[in-house]
């Protein structure tokens, strides 16, 4: 289908890291079913190195929601938390060879899902973090503005 790039379709058809991590160290969930997109991301963190050793996702949403989730997990797997927090929606879009304009919000959700999972890990481990890691308001309209 011409709507999406080959890369998007590949990640949609064969999503990487789908599933749950029963023993996750952090879980982030963003979006809401009303708006048609929910991403839940599970991370496993090595406390010694702060490296994300495993990551999984569950997503309810359109093709690009699934593809951006998949790509985001690939991009943060094996990376230190600090790098994961730097993952921008733009990087996800680029890694997917682009997204249609009306689907950019999915890449924002993926970025937010990663941050939410890291925040959850920090919270659980009582690690302080700054304002810049404040949660997404979870309201789709908020994410309506262009990030990429």
């Amino acid at each position, binding site marked *: *289908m011409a*709507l999406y790039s080959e890369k998007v*379709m590949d990640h*949609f*058809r064969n*999503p990487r890291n*789908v599933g*749950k991590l029963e023993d996750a160290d952090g879980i982030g*969930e963003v979006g809401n*079913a*009303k*708006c*048609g*997109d*929910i*991403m*839940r991301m599970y991370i496993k963190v090595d406390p010694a190195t702060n490296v994300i050793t495993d990551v999984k996702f*569950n*997503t*309810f*949403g*359109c*093709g690009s*929601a*699934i593809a951006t989730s998949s790509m985001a997990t690939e991009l943060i797997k094996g990376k230190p938390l600090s790098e994961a927090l730097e993952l921008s929606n733009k990087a996800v879009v680029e890694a997917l060879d682009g997204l249609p*304009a*009306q689907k950019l*919000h999915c890449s924002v959700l993926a970025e937010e899902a990663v941050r939410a999972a890291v925040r959850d890990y920090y919270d659980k481990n009582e690690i302080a973090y700054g304002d810049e890691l404040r949660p997404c308001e979870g309201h*789709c309209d908020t994410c*309506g503005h262009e990030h990429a």
Partner: protein
Amino acid sequence: MNVYADNAATTAVSKTALEAMLPCFQEVYGNPSSLHSPGQRAAEKLAAARDLFARRLNASPREITFTSGGSEADNQALRSAAALGARKGKKHIISTKFEHHAILHTLSALEKEGFTVTLLDIPPEGVVTAEQVRAALRTDTCLVSVMFANNEIGTIQPIGEIGAVCREAGVLFHTDAVQAAGHLPIDVEALQIDLLSLSAHKFHGPKGVGVLYARKGIPLVNVIYGGAQERGKRAGTENVPGICGAAAAFDEACEKMAEHQAYLTPLRDKLIAGLTAIPHTVLNGDAQRRLPGNVNVCFEGIEGESLLLLLDDRGVAASSGSACTSGSLDPSHVLLALGRPHEVAHGSLRLSLCEYNTPEEIDYLLAVLPEIVSYLRNMSPVWDELETGRRPHLI
């Protein structure tokens, strides 16, 4: 296997329609407004097409105006009735919440121009009642517009009853029959319809041809100004090939209507039975009062677009109520009007069949769909919450 199950979106042009069009491209290519023989031959074809639509709708040829499609016909119908109403100081219009955007957006434009619009609620089975219309009538109502059959959920509205209520009240009645024309019998006299729109590409005619029926005595206002075509009411050189194809397609669709209905209804019902056997799946719209080819269900816990994409990978062309592609995040206004919660409305699937579909295709759909639904549910955090009891099932 390839299955085209999106006939409510558009249909393939039939052999009959194509054969009616072909001579108009390079042989009878004159301009019907021209005085000379090549032009008059085209004018004759145009007249024959007009006669045919008139005969099939039980109208007279002067009541038939050709437009560029269903949308234009809808726009012109509403604007004409509104202009007539305004002249009499009547500026209230009644329609429904689940009309096509060609109606809803024109009504919004009319609201900006000073009209008041009442949109009727949609009962859970997707069929509005003549009583609802009667109850909404005001002394300043100039127009009632209710679609013949809904384009998403396929439910058939009680057009004759609504026509009777309107006629009794002396209010013009328009019906958007884009989904019904060629699929359900339409007699504008018997049903007391004053204005009606249809679109050729929904019944194996070509894209880009619509018809506006307007009862004698209802003056049309121009949507497009210019030349004197269509008795001055629709400017622009007539699309003669398209119009001839439209007429041929309509003739055939009307001729074989009962046959197609008898063929499609069991296929539709089998599909409905098979799909609603999937847990937490619901049929949208009344099971009986629906177009013979329409199936529309909601699967809880998944989202329509990914379903469509995976179906497409398996060769199935279908559609979803979700307006994903249009850039909007909102789910179908039709399903919301029907009372489906947002989260459920996102997971809708419309399969619209035509007589070209085979029983084998239905079996194939029933084989692939449960698999895909399970696959997506397994990936869905919403389904996870539903199954683990953290969220209550809505269907």
